[in-house]
């Protein structure tokens, strides 16, 4: 608001001395507690019919909740799990999911809405003032408590019977040991589990799609294949545990495109086998771009260059992707020449 908006007579210059004379000293303390405003009644406090209406509304909400709960049980019992219906804004949805959610939602909402309506219209809303009291206890109460404590200590002979006192200290000190011993269940230490995978010398590379051993001629430049070690079966009890470390992706590069000499040495006719586990936090990575030979991890965007020894070219990963050394055996199948030379997956304390 600019000064133009203020009428002339309200400007300080125009008011002059009338201002000072108009100020009257307020009677008493100007900052005194004004107290509570007068209590205002609700319709329901005055009109018994309105109160009855409110009561019926609350009861109706609670009854609706009961009906919805019965509806929940009825839908659970009667609606088949694979039935689909069309509901306007949501689209196609499982009839069971929809009715369970709807009835449970209505049942819970009506209890809440009923309780709020009850509290707002029928429960007493008269303001109540409660004065605060000093927190400190009276001096004589304090003195009595301290005296009682001293008397109790004296009667327990805590200071006199040193044997009891010392053994009690010992017992209390030993109890937490049970908790410490339970930490043993975090073990046993992993041993070499983080360093070894299911790969070993002479194990053939099995195609995960067909469960057949891979031949070098199966793998074309630009293709992507996933392999597991020979002898690992999907029905095996420890399949998930083993494949989590042994998962392998196989691509074929033209030998002249391989920049890293070790990678070329460890390949078979340009077929390179890399661990599928990101060295950052162990996500499975296989977002392979066949023109750039880059592999992207979907979790934190670490990017590895498969034509340059699995080198990290972007992102938080700290180690190159481990490569598995492979060769073509005399039957014409691809086989591993040993385990990965370094631990696969994320780094750990003793990794070195």
């Amino acid at each position, binding site marked *: 608001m600019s000064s133009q908006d203020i009428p002339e007579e309200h400007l300080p210059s125009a008011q002059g001395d009338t201002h000072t004379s108009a100020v009257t000293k307020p009677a008493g303390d100007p900052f005194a507690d004004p107290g509570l405003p007068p209590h205002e009644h609700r*319709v329901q406090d005055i009109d018994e019919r309105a109160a009855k209406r409110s009561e019926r509304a609350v009861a109706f909400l609670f009854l609706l909740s009961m009906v919805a709960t019965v509806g929940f049980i009825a839908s659970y019992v009667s609606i088949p799990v694979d039935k689909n219906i069309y509901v306007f804004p949501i689209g196609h949805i499982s009839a069971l*999911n929809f009715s369970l959610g709807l009835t449970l939602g209505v049942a819970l909402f009506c209890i809440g809405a009923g309780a709020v309506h009850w509290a*707002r219209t029928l429960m007493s809303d008269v303001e109540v003032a409660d004065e605060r009291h000093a927190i400190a206890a009276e001096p004589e109460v304090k003195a009595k408590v301290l005296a009682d404590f001293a008397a109790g200590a004296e009667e327990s002979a805590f200071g006199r019977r040193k044997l009891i006192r010392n053994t009690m200290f010992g017992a209390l000190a030993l109890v937490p040991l049970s908790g410490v011993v339970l930490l043993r269940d975090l073990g046993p230490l992993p041993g070499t589990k983080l360093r070894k995978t299911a790969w070993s010398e002479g194990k053939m590379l099995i195609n995960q*799609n067909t469960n057949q051993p891979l031949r070098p001629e199966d793998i074309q430049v630009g293709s992507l294949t996933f392999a597991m070690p020979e002898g690992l079966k999907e029905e095996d009890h420890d399949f998930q545990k083993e494949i989590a470390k042994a998962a392998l992706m196989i691509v074929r590069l033209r030998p002249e495109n391989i920049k890293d000499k070790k990678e070329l040495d460890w390949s078979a006719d340009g077929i390179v086998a890399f661990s599928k586990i990101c060295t950052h936090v162990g996500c499975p990575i296989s977002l392979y771009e*066949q023109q750039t030979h880059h592999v992207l991890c*979907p979790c934190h965007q670490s990017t590895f260059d498969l034509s340059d020894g699995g080198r990290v070219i972007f992102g938080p990963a700290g180690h190159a992707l481990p490569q598995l050394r492979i060769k073509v055996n005399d039957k014409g199948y691809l086989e591993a020449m040993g385990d990965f030379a370094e631990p696969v997956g994320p780094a750990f304390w003793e990794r070195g």
Partner: protein
Amino acid sequence: MKKLSARRRHPLAAVVVLLFALAVTGGLYAAFAPADTAKADDTAAQSLAIEEGKKLYSVGCASCHGTGGQGTTDGPSLVGVGASAVDFQVGTGRMPLQQQGAQAPKKKAIYDQAEIDQLAAYIASLGAGPSVPSKDQYSPDGADIAKGGELFRTNCAQCHNFTGKGGALSNGKFAPSLEDVNPKHIYEAMQTGPQNMPSFPDTTMSEKNKKDIIAYLDTVNSSKSQSPGGLELGGLGPVSEGLFAWIFGLGALIVVAIWVAARTAKAKKS
């Protein structure tokens, strides 16, 4: 049978056998001869298609891929990519490219199917490559959907998302959504590995595997597939779902709380 073998020494037996043999030979000839003429027609039609395709190629493709499909700095060589790659790239409108970029996006197809077939015939004549799959190769009928899901999660889900909704790659590249993509094009993409997608040749992913994958996608990600969860919110996972719950769920609760508190229960409205 016994009657027949009893008369095998009848004077007319040789004549009957001879007549029978002649009828069979004639019948076989009648059955196969038209096929031969059709084949000859096919070859003629084929070379005509290659001629036509070459003309289309010189106009629409040669500026980037070179006059003989040998490739230039603007486009890769097309020798040996096969008819399947042409059918995919031109059939989905990715080629001809509008402008150089991170990757060629799907757009309205410029050539009709007859022209695409001619282009494909020409490119296939440059070098051996995968041919366009037939309908019974890519049709989802009779495939194992559960196995297809397993294969999809092993081979495809890392880029295309678990139900084929697509996802981001590096430097502006992305894996497109597979929703309502023609099964033929899905098959061709697996076969040829367009752009940065790796290929999944029949040697490592059998024809049956590909059919299973197409059947899986047809079940979970097509206009007729049904989602038991209702509103999918793009099927992108916890980010969109969480955002929806925080904004609309919590927002609705706040609105209700404000509405309750804003209305006074007093008889005298102030």
